[in-house]
């Protein structure tokens, strides 16, 4: 985006304005309050000019102008009340919009699921959801109301000045419209630059998260110190690009300042020339001088908030890009509660967009109970098969039947209610061990948690943690070892009591002894549900009731480990390659 975006910019405004419907009342109130405040300023100038004129030229004393001074005091109090109310209205003008957009974006992320979201960096998403949405606030609370003020207040001042002195009226009339004209002229260029700056900001925060997560690796290679220089360089680049944008954006305010100041100087000098010859009187001259700066105040506000608009537009573009990203078609059907789940893949094929087929014509059935180990070399299609079974994406060809019902027609949530999944590197959420276990079973009592931990052979180390079940686990469980995280994830899956349990290399981080214990548990689990496990180790395959060997997207072999060992094929090859090392 960035470069060619200036042409598309106008399309974001109408869409943002449609968002404004959610807070229409507050927006209107905020405009109205601003206008009334503007008119009060005019009234104040009139009173002030009368006082000064009276004292200097009519030789009035303090007592003669007391009434006017009281009038001024009344206006001041009224303006203070309006200012307070306007600030509250401005805040309300964007509150609901921000809350709803945050909700919609996160809900959309969940609707798209892990496969479709894989291309988006999490730091970039978080930046859009927080800073990006905050950037919309000034658009609604400042920029939009200011647009209305820009018309209403200068027109009222002009209506007052023109009959008083047509020359000054013409000066203001000419200077006024020139300002928006020049602002648009420079503004569009600034907008394109601003887009790039926003991209840069997002890239920077992605880079930082990446560097923080990899800080240990950087240290291991003795490169962490270099990274400090890289961060300095990136920040410097950010400064250059931003300043490039600001140099232009500030031109808009310089133009404004130029016309506003010039108009005041012109009004003063021209009036002076006429006053000195007694052609006009002091009162209109002084009133116009008081009003001339006020004429430009709303326009100045607009230029101030124009930058906010550009930032908001850049942020909105990213927000809408995420919101408009397509959601893969999903079923709406609901699975009836079931005690047994049988799965059948019929001619299932899958290819990523534009890529070669990862799976082709896969026919395989999974019974309601028993453990199936899925084996194959890297790229054989094991992980893809699991993603399809989990309903993270639909097959490109063929169908997957769950108790005879096509999975493509079933709402994913309904299917996820029946399955539990332990990914290759399971993540623990920030919170306690108990919070993590209860993720799929919020009402489970403590003894159920302990039972699940026992099953997963995790009870012993959890008991040893300070606080036990209440012990906090860091992001990704950083306070625990890889094997411990995996066992807690297993316990979490057990606790959900699913009909189908899917594991991706789930015993990976375990030592031989723990692995044997976990495999015992899995075998126990498999007595009453289907268990599918991607196995990279033959020890897992040997414990499974059935071994499914994939090769280049097809089922190469299917049977018990003993039977496969006896027959020539991929399994034997894998087995031999492994055996050579051990023997």
């Amino acid at each position, binding site marked *: 985006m960035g470069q060619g975006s200036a042409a598309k910019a106008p399309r974001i405004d109408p869409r943002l304005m449609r968002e404004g419907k959610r807070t229409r009342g507050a927006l209107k109130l905020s405009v109205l309050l601003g206008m009334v405040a503007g008119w009060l300023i005019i009234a104040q100038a009139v009173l002030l000019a009368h006082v000064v004129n009276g004292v200097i030229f009519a030789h009035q*004393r303090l007592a003669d102008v007391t009434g006017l001074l009281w009038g001024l005091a009344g206006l001041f109090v009224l303006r203070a009340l309006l200012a307070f109310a306007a600030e509250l209205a401005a805040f309300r003008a964007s509150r609901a919009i921000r809350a709803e957009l945050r909700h919609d974006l996160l809900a959309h992320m969940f609707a798209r699921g892990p496969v479709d979201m894989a291309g988006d960096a999490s730091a970039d998403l978080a930046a859009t959801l927080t800073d990006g949405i905050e950037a919309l606030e000034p658009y609604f609370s400042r920029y939009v109301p200011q647009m209305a003020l820009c018309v209403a207040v200068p027109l009222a001042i002009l209506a007052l000045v023109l009959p008083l002195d047509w020359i000054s009226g013409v000066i203001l009339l000419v200077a006024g419209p020139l300002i928006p004209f020049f602002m648009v002229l420079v503004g569009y260029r600034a907008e394109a630059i601003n887009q790039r700056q926003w991209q840069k900001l997002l890239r920077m925060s992605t880079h930082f998260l990446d560097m923080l997560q990899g800080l240990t690796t950087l240290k291991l*290679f003795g490169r962490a110190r270099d990274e400090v220089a890289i961060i300095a360089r990136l920040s410097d680049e950010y400064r250059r690009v931003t300043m490039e944008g600001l140099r232009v954006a500030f031109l808009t305010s310089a133009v404004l300042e130029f016309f506003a100041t010039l108009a005041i100087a012109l009004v003063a000098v021209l009036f002076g020339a006429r006053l000195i010859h007694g052609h006009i009187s002091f009162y209109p001259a002084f009133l116009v001088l008081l009003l001339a700066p006020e004429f430009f105040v709303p326009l100045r506000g607009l230029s101030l908030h124009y930058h906010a608009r550009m930032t908001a537009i850049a942020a909105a573009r990213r927000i809408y890009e995420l919101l408009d990203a397509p959601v893969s078609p999903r079923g709406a059907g609901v699975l009836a509660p079931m005690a047994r789940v049988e799965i059948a893949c019929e001619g299932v094929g899958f290819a990523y967009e534009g890529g070669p087929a990862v799976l082709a014509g896969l026919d395989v059935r999974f019974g309601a109970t028993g453990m199936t180990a899925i084996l194959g070399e890297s790229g054989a299609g094991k992980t893809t098969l699991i993603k399809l079974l989990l309903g993270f994406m639909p097959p490109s060809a063929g169908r997957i039947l769950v108790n005879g019902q096509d999975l493509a027609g079933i709402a994913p949530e309904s299917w996820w209610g029946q399955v539990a999944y332990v990914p290759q590197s399971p993540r623990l959420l920030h919170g306690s061990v108990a919070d993590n276990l209860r993720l799929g079973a919020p009402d489970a009592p403590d003894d159920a948690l302990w039972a699940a931990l026992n099953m997963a052979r995790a009870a012993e180390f959890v008991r040893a943690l300070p606080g036990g079940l209440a012990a906090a686990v860091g992001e990704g469980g950083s306070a625990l070892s890889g094997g411990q995280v995996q066992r807690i994830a297993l316990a979490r899956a057990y606790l959900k009591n699913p009909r189908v349990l899917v594991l991706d290399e789930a015993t990976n981080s375990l030592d031989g002894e723990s692995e044997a214990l976990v495999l015992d548990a899995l075998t126990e689990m498999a007595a009453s549900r289907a268990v599918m496990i991607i196995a990279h180790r033959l020890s897992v395959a040997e414990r499974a009731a059935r071994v499914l060997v994939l090769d280049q997207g097809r089922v190469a072999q299917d049977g018990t480990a003993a039977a496969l060992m006896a027959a020539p094929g991929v399994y034997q090859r894998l087995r031999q390659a492994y055996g050579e090392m051990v023997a």
Partner: protein
Amino acid sequence: MNEMRRLVRLFAAQKGWMISGLAIACVTVMANFWLMTLSGWFLASTGIVGLSSFAVQNQFNFFTPAASVRFFATLRVGARYGERLVTHEATFRLLAELRAWFFGRLVPLAPAGLKDQRTGDLLARLSGDIDTLNLFYLRVYVPALAAGITVGLMTLFFAWFSGWAALWLLVGLGLNGVAVPMLTARLGHKAGAEVTSTMAALRTHYVEAAQSLPELLTYGAAPGALAEAAALNGRLQAAQGRMAGYAGLSLAASGLATNFTLLAVLVAGIKAVTGAGLNPADLALLALGAVAAFEAVAPLPQAFAQYGQIKAAARRVFEVADLPVPVAEPAVTAARPARFDLALEGVSLRYGADRPWALEDVTLRVAEGQRIGVIGPTGAGKSTLINLLLRFYEYQAGSARLGGQELRNFTPEQMARLVTVVSQRSHLFHTTIRDNLLLARGDADEAALMNALEVAQLADFVRGLPEGLDTVVGEAGIALSGGQGRRIALARAVLRPTPWLILDEPTEGLDAGTEAAFLRDLAPVLAGRTVLVITHRPAPLALVDEVWRLEAGRLMAGPAVAALHKA
């Protein structure tokens, strides 16, 4: 206040930019003040002259004030633009300075000193909080100091005409610029801190949600995560709403202060004109000056309102930056040893005085060129052994020597030059495969990189990618499978011919066939190096001469290698 002083000290290198911005800001305000006062005086004087005789009209010097009006108008325009440019330039320079400084502080902390920090939260500190600190110069430093200087000048100017007018102006400006903002800042302090911390919590929540999508979805926890985000947003907006209320109050109060100052100056001026013989034309000057003067203090309420947020952000940033460094700088830095034998004598290490020993009374000798395997159950202390050797953690008891020199005298940087680790947690950066490899050796050429990939059995895969070595690896290497990521980590090790090589669960995540081939190809990489293999899988032990076993932090002799290989 302490945090603020510390910020200014941090920024010493950019002093020139900071002071230039401040000076131009003062010029901008004063140019406008004199433009308005002069214009008012000019109109009233010409008005008075216009009413008098022709002779008086001819005597009046019209051109000097008219030219001055034009001069101040031009100065104002130029200074405004210059001020914006210079203050923003300074701001971004300070931002760059601050980011690099903060990251530099984190480097010695990782990973030991950062154990309890969430990375998402750290990110919030690094970019969000530092962006907030940005506002310090632009919204606090410049407005506050510029206001102080210009208010002084304007009050002196007023005093020339009327002492009372000057006094009222000073009182009004003080109310507007100091009393009101201080009051609102006190009111907004809590809400400001709440906005900063809730925003950080929200950011962390989103990072976590994005990274845990499979779990949240399959466990039906997505609605819960949505509700938690909504609750956090609610808390954020409640705090922002309170801030808006205080902002409104502050606006109203400062408006009152401004306007009643005008009123007071008017009354003082009128009294002076009628009683003390002040030139009537000067009343117009005072009236317009009293309005224009408030431009100097106009940004102060906002400055004080943000002061709370800035202070909270500064505290959070300093809090992380000030965490104790887990490994002290050695008093005497060891020279690069001539030999690389390792001798541990009764070494004990624990992560805190109240924690159990992670390594207890460990004694181990590894001669240069020897290959040692360490096995043991999860949590037995295998990773701690690595932390010890890499100087990520300080050991509390015993003696550890490398090439005869105490390990305590080596810096982590020195150890990084002597040891290469292929770890189960090697991080793949979100950049090209090439850059991920160059991390290990910056000057490696294409042939060296491909050779390393060849050894790691990844060359064919990389050659098959449309962009080859320049393919970007997804965040945390998501686009690559676990096995492929490990092989990149291995290729990095191939590129670094360090005397020591630590293989930390080297084949985990590889299937049996690939593991076997991988271990076979690993053999030449080990040649001439001292090797420590940490594993719970049997296959990698084929590489070692001697096996030890760790259990609950204690090291004991492991099974005989010959027996292992037969099993």
